[in-house]
């Protein structure tokens, strides 16, 4: 499934770019992220818990930054195994443009789930994926505007 969106962030582009490349910031903003570890400048490993209604799955996965064009754009790609639940993977093309001291963040994301999750949850996967993406960018926006997301 595909989704896209645009956010205006009250911070200069360089600051937004730095945050987008900071594992600690990503940990704060990725919904359900329990742990994240930088393994190279462009790769990280992460543990993420996703809860969609009664379904709760813990994904161990890798995050990779591709097509890096500092401080304008990159592609952030994640892929995780959720044990018996199946797998989830997704990627987002993120572009930052300057607009009078503020930054406009635009993203186009694609997400895919497989295994049992997809079979059982097909009724809801799209809505859930959109919600997770929206939460991430809401959290990111709040973080840069000085409001940190709740711990969960």
């Amino acid at each position: 499934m595909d989704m896209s969106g645009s956010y205006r962030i009250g911070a200069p582009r360089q600051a937004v770019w730095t945050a987008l490349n900071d594992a600690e910031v990503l940990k704060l903003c990725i919904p359900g992220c329990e742990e994240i570890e930088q393994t190279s400048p462009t790769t990280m490993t992460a543990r993420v818990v996703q809860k969609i209604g009664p379904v709760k799955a813990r994904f161990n996965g890798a995050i990779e930054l591709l097509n890096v064009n500092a401080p304008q754009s990159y592609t952030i790609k994640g892929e995780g195994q959720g044990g018996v639940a199946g797998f989830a993977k997704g990627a987002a093309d993120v572009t930052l443009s300057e607009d009078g001291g503020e930054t406009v963040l635009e993203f186009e994301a694609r997400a895919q789930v497989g295994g049992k999750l997809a079979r059982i949850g097909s009724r809801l996967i799209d809505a859930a994926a959109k919600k997770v993406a929206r939460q991430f960018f809401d959290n990111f926006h709040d973080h840069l505007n000085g409001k940190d997301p709740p711990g969960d």
Partner: protein
Amino acid sequence: MYPTKYHKAASIDDAVAALGAGEEALVLAGGQTLLATMKQHLASPSDLVDIRAIDGMSGVSTDGDMLVIGAATTHAEVAGSADVQRLCPALAGLARGIGDPAVRHVGTIGGSIANNDPAADYPAGLLALGATVVTSKRQIGADDFFQGLFTTALDDDEVITSVRIPAASRAGYAKFRQPASLFALVGVFAAQGAGGTRVAVTGAGEDGVFRHVGLEAALGADWSAAAAGGVGVASEGLLADIHASAEYRANLIGVMAKRAVEAS
């Protein structure tokens, strides 16, 4: 396999304590969603706290013109209750149309609203009727209780004890079923009462049950199928999946709104 500890709570305090003590404890009511999910290993709670045996948790009573339905009351009990049929026949009809007979005889009103599945029937009924959810620690109005896809105002250690539903002067519910899952592809509950005219839509919103302002305004001015049919329903923010596009759901909202008014 994974171990799960089963607690049969004797009281609400007992249930709250067990929920707080478990590493990942969940309330078990009818289990029509939770147990099916556990069987698939898509949920593995450390503890299940069964609240069905707690005194006063199930059954329907009245408080003046207010229906008081215990959280562990099954859909079949709500459908068959003389009080519900008298004070709010549309709600009895809603309960009679949930899932299949097996679900209706085990599934509970509290379980349905705590889960807040975006295609469940009860959230639409409670939101349109302006119900109040009573929990182990407070009372929450339906407008504040339902907070989006599978999300409610409930804390992890909070237990729903009952639902209080004011009688409406006019109310109707109509849904278009997804024939395989029996969930609502779109369901519309329209009600008019002391709280004004309220129209709630389930099955269609990307973020779960919602009130439709346009339908409320039209039906508030003229409670008729024609008035409902004259409202343009936008497809923005509606679910799209292999069963129906957002545009198809938008159209169904209009059609179900008309039928809900005709049924009232």
